């Protein structure tokens, strides 16, 4: 009996050790990045692992005052927020119709939308470049936003339609009997009830646009218009020997994402794993 208890205890200890090891492997690189960003170059070279001898905000000062990285952040914020703004309206409208109406092609239409999830975005970049030429899409945020919206439509419609299908119908039926118009029912009843699903889908789209590199690489040739991803890359290219500055740039670029993540972790995890597990 005591042997069993020891075995169970030992098992537990091993479990915690493994979990902690992976925790360190996941989190330590980020902590190391943060610490290094607060060091002077000499401090980093002589003291790679330790805490900063003196906490220096010089790197951040340089990033914001000299490099003006806040512009890159604003560009990315503008693009990402506009993208999800448009998506929230158009995809919820489509999802509402797809979840509430039965017509000849309603099911086929949902499958048609979902087919887009299968298309790797990189495979459409060349035609999009040709379109950019026709529609003056280079160095043009509006064009980029349109593309990001289109890329996100299938997944957004998929997540929101699934959720709306599961909503109880009593309220809308009552509203309908009271003579409420369809657009009003959509806006006043369906939209507010669907906020969890819309939030999940919107955050995913936000990250998609915020984290994108390749489309920005192709479409933005004007240095003054760079997004955060491009800004990061051009910063490393310009200051390839400024290690601590690069660490600071990494931190600046991930802070907005991390803030969002810590506020909305549940929705984010749910949204990203939706559809993978039945139910």
């Amino acid at each position, binding site marked *: 009996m005591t042997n069993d208890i020891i075995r169970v205890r030992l098992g537990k200890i091993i479990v*915690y050790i*493994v*979990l902690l090891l*992976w925790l360190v492997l*996941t*989190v330590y*690189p980020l902590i190391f990045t943060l610490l290094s960003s607060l060091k002077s170059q000499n401090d*980093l070279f002589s003291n*790679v*692992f330790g805490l900063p001898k003196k906490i220096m905000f010089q790197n951040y000062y340089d990033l914001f005052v000299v490099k003006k990285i806040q512009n890159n952040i604003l560009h990315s914020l503008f693009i990402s927020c506009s993208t999800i703004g448009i998506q929230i*309206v*158009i*995809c919820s409208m*489509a999802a*509402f119709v*797809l979840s*509430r109406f039965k*017509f000849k092609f309603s099911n086929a*239409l949902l499958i048609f*939308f979902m087919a887009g999830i*299968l*298309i*790797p975005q*990189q*495979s*459409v*970049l*060349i*035609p*999009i*470049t*040709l379109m950019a030429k026709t529609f003056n899409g280079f160095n043009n945020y509006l064009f980029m936003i*349109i593309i990001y*919206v*289109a*890329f996100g*439509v*299938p997944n957004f*419609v998929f997540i929101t339609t699934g959720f709306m299908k599961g909503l109880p119908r009593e309220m809308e039926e009552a509203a309908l009997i009271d003579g409420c118009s*369809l657009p009003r029912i*959509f806006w006043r009843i369906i939209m507010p009830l669907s906020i969890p699903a819309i939030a999940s889908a919107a955050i995913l789209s936000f*990250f998609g646009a915020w984290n994108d*590199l*390749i489309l920005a690489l192709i479409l933005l040739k004007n240095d003054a218009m760079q997004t955060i*991803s491009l800004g990061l*890359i051009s910063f*490393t*290219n310009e200051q390839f020997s400024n290690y601590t500055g*690069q*660490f600071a740039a990494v931190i600046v*670029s*991930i802070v907005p994402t991390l803030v969002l*993540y810590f506020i909305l972790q549940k929705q984010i*995890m749910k949204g*990203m*794993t939706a*559809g*993978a*597990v*039945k139910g």
Partner: protein
Amino acid sequence: MFTFKQNKLIVIAFLIPALLFYISFMLYPAFYAIVLSFFKWSGVASTDTYFNGLNNYILLFRNPVFWLSVKNLVFLLVVSVLTQLPIAFILAYMLSGNIRYVNIFKVSYFMPVILSATAVSMMWKLILDDKYGLLNNFLRGVGLESLSRSWLTDPDISFKVITLINSWQHVGYFLIILIAGIATISEELFEALKIDGAGIFTTVFKVVIPLIKEVIGVCVVLILTQCMKTFDIIYVMTSGTFGPNNVNQVPVGLMYYRSFIEDNFGQGSAIATMVLLFGVLLSSVVYIKGFQQKNTV
């Protein structure tokens, strides 16, 4: 309740915006990419465009760099599945037991997934730096200097390192999916197994894995599609060169190079078409299955 006949106009008006975006900037370009792959086309400014039959594909198949990129992709696919799946499963299984602070673990493990691959790669590039990087300094510190390497510029190991960093970033995603999968197994079953004195291996291999094999299948496909799209991480880690000498090249990177650096849109489209077909084929397995389940249950 709502009838289509009475609301035809509204239904159509509600569908049109999403359809318009989706068709014009996703579906149409996808088909156009396939068409372009049969044409000789040199870049955005080109006027000299003509039907080229299968020439783009033939030239591509004769090019050793293409096969190198395919070889790298296969390596990436295989190693990613073999590293991410077991690690994700072991951690997910452990977290499904009676563990304190589960949420701290989950939130931390998932964190790299949402970070931009650009930032993650830059971070690792600094950590793996020859001289001032964390890893080489650590190896020197513990007397293992002989193990220190130019992790990202040594052609023998750079792609292996990139593969592992990519796995590091995405393990958390599959971990969360697997936790959700394991949670669908009933508590009573685990209780019964315990009473029967079933060992950990019996429990895992004879019960848990068979019960969640569909979830594991979804994970495999998601890993494969994610790997196929891997671009940012290699672009950043190799400073945009995919080299030295293309040793870290993958099909998507080659597509980017052919199309946007060398202005060879035809060959670029041929690669894009293969990426498209491969991606659609792979993920349709999962989504069609998932869709059928959703509709039948």
